């Protein structure tokens, strides 16, 4: 059955704070799924742990609500088992840039055909607002009362340095653009990292909607084939956050496309009711 904005919604009402950026992201995500005319059952969404990933309970598709930071390896395994599925990861900045940063690097290196949506609000909000890997330096939170010391992680440049084949940034308040980015990411054959900037109105008072309004622009006149330019434009020193598709390389096959075993059929469709092991056993005779 085709997904519509209506049928995708579960019976559970979102539990986010009124005004949370997650509402905008979810709306754009639902519209993207509808416009791509995907079926409910062919979409597998794997969620990490955090405010954003709590949408596991609000979506009606197949889902895995994984452990904190571990959604990407779950996604890799699922994709290799059944590459006919559209495998989408929903995580947060603490989730995918902190706890699971290692997996992010290796998912990108393998060019696994997974679309990764990172709800990036520069805070650990589900645990009441501690600093995250993307918090600006000197951010004062309950765990960084003197201001955070670490340099903020730049997810776009990290992804670009790993030759990620689809690198984009969206904004929860720009529905139209975000929806198009998510659609492009899902249709991309390979690993897509979509970093989605969102306000946390409860735990990040420094950056409210007004701040984002003044500091976010759309990326214009950029050729996403130009890796060098993408790297420059995504610098941490940039004056404003420009959202859009920074980089896309369509020439590299996805990981599963390079496995001989999966050339004809998915792994699960190769189930054997009778397993003949004579050609294995004879080697040990």
């Amino acid at each position, binding site marked *: *059955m085709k997904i519509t904005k209506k049928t995708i919604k*579960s019976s*559970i009402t979102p539990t986010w704070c009124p005004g949370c950026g997650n509402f905008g992201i979810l709306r754009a995500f639902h519209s993207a799924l509808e416009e791509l005319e995907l*079926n*409910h*059952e*062919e979409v*597998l969404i*794997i969620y990490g*742990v955090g405010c954003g990933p*709590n949408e*596991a*309970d609000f979506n*009606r*598709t*197949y*889902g*895995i*609500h*994984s*452990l904190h930071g*571990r959604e990407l*390896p*779950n*996604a*890799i*395994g*699922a*994709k*290799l*088992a*059944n590459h*006919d*599925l559209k495998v989408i990861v929903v995580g947060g900045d603490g989730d995918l840039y902190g706890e699971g940063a*290692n*997996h992010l*690097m*290796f998912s990108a290196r393998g060019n696994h055909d997974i679309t990764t949506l990172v709800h990036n609000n520069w805070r650990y909000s589900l645990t009441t607002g501690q600093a995250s890997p993307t918090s600006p330096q000197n951010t004062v939170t309950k765990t960084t009362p003197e201001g955070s010391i670490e340099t903020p992680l730049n997810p776009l440049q990290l992804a670009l340095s790993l030759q990620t084949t689809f690198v984009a940034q969206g904004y929860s308040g720009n529905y139209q653009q975000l929806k198009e980015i998510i659609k492009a990411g899902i249709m991309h054959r390979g690993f897509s990292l979509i970093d989605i900037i969102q306000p946390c109105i409860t735990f990040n008072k420094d950056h409210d909607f007004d701040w984002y309004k003044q500091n976010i622009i759309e990326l214009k006149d950029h050729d996403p084939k130009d890796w060098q330019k993408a790297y420059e434009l995504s610098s941490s020193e940039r004056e404003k956050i420009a959202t859009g598709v920074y980089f896309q390389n369509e020439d590299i096959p996805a990981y599963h496309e390079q*496995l*001989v*075993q*999966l050339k004809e059929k998915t*792994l*699960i469709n*190769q*189930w*054997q*009711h*009778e*397993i*003949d*092991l*004579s*050609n*294995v*056993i004879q080697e*040990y*005779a």
Partner: protein
Amino acid sequence: MSQDKPSFNWKITGQAGHGVMLASMLMAKMAKRHGMQAFNYLEYPSLIKGGHQTGQVCADFTCASCQRKKLDVIVIYTQESFAVHKQEITDDTIIIYNSDFEELSEEIKNIYQGRIQQMPLASWAKEITGTTLAANTVSLGVSALAIGLDPDICKQVIGDAFDSQEIIDKNLAAFDRGYLEASKVIDSKFSITPQEDKNILLNGNEALGLGALSGGLQFYSAYPMTPSTGLLHFLNEHKHKLPIVVKQVEDEIGAIHEAIGASVAGARAMTGSSGGGFALMVEALAFAGGAEIPLVILEGQRTGPATGAPTWTAQSDLSFVLTAGHGIFPKVVLTPGTVEEHFQLAQKAMYLAEKYQLPIVILSDKYILESHQTMPAPDMVFINERQSMVDKSELSADESYLRYLDTESGISKRSIPGQEFGLQLTNSYEHDQWGFATEDAQTIEKSVNKRARKMSLILQELPQPKLIGSDQAEITLVGWGSTINVLRETVKALDKKVNAIHLACMHPFPVESFKQLTSTSQKLIMVEGNVDGQGEAWIKQQTGIGMDDRIRRFDGRPFYAEDLVESLTNLEKNSANSEKKNLMGRLSFTGK
């Protein structure tokens, strides 16, 4: 000297890079092709060149369940081996010394006079093949003559061991040269008359791999770690024949989570590591248990703690594995003993994990995972049916399907992504029957009970304790995992005085059958490879049955039947003097 049904015990020692391990496996295979049972035990340090490696093959027409001490033939590459293996060399041992590397000291020549054959194995290899690489094959030729093996059968083994004809020819020539040179100076110790060979030869890793494949394995992800790496290699070697997906992953956390993802998506999946890697997997183990995800995990124990002694054995992770995972969830811990049982239980684990939708840990160790042992050739074709999966016909457009349906058995039929009308959320949070997260008190209690019910049901499909030997014995040895290989030989040596109980499943513990089996035992002695008696404590906790005595070893080495026999014989003498002593002190192997 010849016997009707002879057995032989052979060893090769050298440095890493000398081909000791390959030669030893080939010797075991040669014995097997003569219709003998064989056990090949390897010792090696954690490095790539140098160090001291050994391979030893015990072969017997009736029973060769473990390594033995007293050697019939030993091949030595470096002089230090004389000191290391002093106690294994007897007055009748034929010593083949590779004289190309070091000149023997006068002292050694004197001590072993008449028993040493100094042979330039590497020079002969170079003359025949152009390089010294095949010195190990020359040594096999010499050994075959010294033991009294049929050279044609041995050469078939060499022919099967290499892919390219050029390498096969070179190695056959190397073998012939060794056999010829030996025939000039050595009298064969035995004359081994070939019998029909119905066995295959595998190590524990390979048997697990074969068993898992026969149980429908489709996806294996792991990070290399001794002693589980052999399984990763085995599956990679054979993956295209099935086919399956085998993947080396960035770390053990990623490895278990990829297997979990594959499993949820419908593939039968497995991961594996040693204790250190398993420690990293433990959070995910609880996820698999709570979210009811079928998963098989190999935990190959080695000497810990931490990095420990990577290439040496231990049985010191049992307590850790039994309690691994936060919260309460169903989990099975299997402890296979022989190579054959590794095959059987891996197959069973694949099936049971899917049927009961839970994680199954196969707890093994370096000793048996990397030792080769003969086992009867199994069937070639295996029936493979899906378990506890929801059928298309049971799914309807009204979307009434519930992933975690609260059933009497505790098992809920599983849908997989892609199935129409089977939508579900596999959830690491506590969840309701659909899969949505819940914090409702009643639902939490119901879910915990539902999962727990699976544990009582699965018990009847798990291996029960096995008694080896006479049921009238005075002493009953109790062991879990690989220890049975040594206990079998001990029981054989002490005939009707001693029997043994082998535990191949430690959790859920087979309480009733263990109680029944031990009800007539006069004296229970626990034999295990750790310092704190983990199996013993667990048995006491589960059954209330305490051991009368205990034998423990924790120096990285396996038990030897000869040592157990000696201890038990001393014990008998001592109890005649009504002196009750703890065996633990007596069997302190460290520093030997």
